[in-house]
């Protein structure tokens, strides 16, 4: 299979450097479609926000991008997802290194019930860092990146479960960043947090823009407006999720093209 990026004519915008592009992407669970025929390009080094009502396939979409859908029995993915031009669903594709390159943060913080340090070293060791000095250095760097280092440096060996929700979420982000991903997927990362922690995590996400390609699902429209470069609206049509409109964030909120976007942005629907 070809590894070169393919020009797509039917996508709404043409971007010169797409990090991820999907074509005709559909996801179905045992009985029904969650997502149908999705064409979307995600520009490199930017933040893309996905918004839309619950159940319209946003989480399913994220899970197709790191092939977490493989773990769900009865879940079928068709169409293509290209990462740096390479089809990640082609046979023989290295899924484990895909998941290293595409990190994912869940709605509910999910640190492992291990020590804070072990939460970082376990995935690092798995992906080839064996040397203990390197492990320590990467651990510290990742914790500094998320602003957690000063808070936990004296108790790296206590359980990650005793951290607050916001700290746990930042630990999960650090854990993903430590692996040096290209893409970071965040599925409603702030919705389980109190407003204060939520603000801290949001600032952290905004700071990722320069170094990573970020895709964030959020129900908080003002959050999307604050941090995203590009915003996409998902909607449930005919029982399956579809993409309604994608636009640069300013334009998405000030001059929405689609009727549904107008209503959703103004709070009339959704």
């Amino acid at each position, binding site marked *: 299979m070809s590894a070169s990026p393919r020009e797509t004519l039917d996508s709404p915008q043409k971007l010169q450097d797409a990090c991820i592009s999907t074509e005709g992407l559909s996801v179905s669970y045992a009985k029904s479609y969650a997502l149908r025929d999705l064409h979307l390009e995600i520009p490199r080094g930017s933040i893309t926000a996905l918004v839309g009502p619950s159940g319209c396939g946003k989480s399913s979409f994220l899970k197709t991008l*790191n092939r*977490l859908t493989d*773990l769900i*029995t009865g879940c079928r993915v068709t169409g293509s997802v290209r990462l740096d031009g390479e089809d990640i669903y082609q046979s023989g594709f290295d*899924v*484990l*290194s*895909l*998941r*290293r390159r595409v*990190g*994912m943060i*869940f709605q*509910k913080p*999910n*640190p*492992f*019930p*291990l*020590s804070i340090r*072990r939460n970082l070293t*376990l*995935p690092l060791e*798995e*992906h080839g860092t064996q040397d203990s000095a390197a492990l320590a250095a990467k651990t510290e760097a990742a914790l500094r990146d998320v602003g957690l280092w000063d808070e936990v440096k004296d108790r790296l*060996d*206590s*359980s990650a*479960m005793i951290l607050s929700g916001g700290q746990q979420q930042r630990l*999960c982000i650090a*854990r*993903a960043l430590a*692996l040096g991903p290209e893409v970071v997927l965040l599925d409603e990362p702030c919705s389980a947090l109190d407003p204060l922690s939520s603000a801290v995590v949001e600032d952290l996400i905004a700071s990722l823009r320069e170094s990573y390609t970020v895709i964030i699902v959020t129900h908080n429209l003002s959050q999307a407006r604050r941090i995203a470069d590009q915003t996409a609206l998902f909607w449930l049509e005919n029982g399956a999720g579809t993409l309604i409109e994608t636009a640069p964030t300013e334009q998405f909120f000030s001059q929405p093209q689609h009727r549904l976007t107008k209503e959703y942005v103004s709070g009339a629907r959704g």
Partner: protein
Amino acid sequence: MNRSSVKADRTATFLCWIVAFAVTGTFFWILWDLLGHGFKGISWSFLTTQPRDAGRSGGISSVLVSTSLILGVCLGVAIPTGVGTAAFLSEWIPRKSRVGRWIRRSLDLLAAVPSIVFGLFGAVFFGEVLGFGFSILSGGLTLALMVLPILIRATEAGFRSASEELRLGGAALGLRRATILRHLLLPAASHGIVVGLVLGVGRALAETAALIFTSGYVTRMPSSLLDSGRSISVHIYDLAMNVPGGEANAYATAVVLILLLILINSLASWATQTWLGGRSLP
């Protein structure tokens, strides 16, 4: 409520209490009899000297050693096989797959096999076909088969109680299934493993019929796993049935066996609490 219904309820209450008293009474009768006769026979020297005169006098040191060795062989085989099978059933194959159904079915049946049948099988298969003879090895392997179903059920329950977040979170970081299993799911399932171990060790310690024809009767101190060795429950049986005048030591040995079972149960509940309390971290 009418009169007859009140009367019936009173009769039922009475009956319930009578049965409860009878059961409790019998329980304390047994306990009283065992402890009353057995406790005075227990001493340090009873535990540390070898049986003499067919067990009428002397202690039970060689019996305790044989018992530990049999238990060691049993657990050494049953733990890896049992935990592996549980992991296979709950983590590797789809929950409702046909293979899984068949394996669970066979385990149900295995759990129902009478211990004397295990004894027959063990004597022929381990003793003769594999050539281990009457030995601690034969006995331990036979017991391993017996405790497998218990161990697997409990461990499987432990794996099932591990949250889905661990599996998803681990996979999202690109961890191999082996790593997720070893570092995330196994600790989460440790509670179930401990429960299964306690039940299994309890069953193994109590087992007699399956050991008579596999590990045998010999009271000498075993010098290898291929020696025959008498387990503690076989010792009680033999003293009670075949050794006139062996009663006093049978009582003492029975009390030791019960104390061992109590010890194991308390160890397990302590361990479980420690793990569930989250005090120990890998």
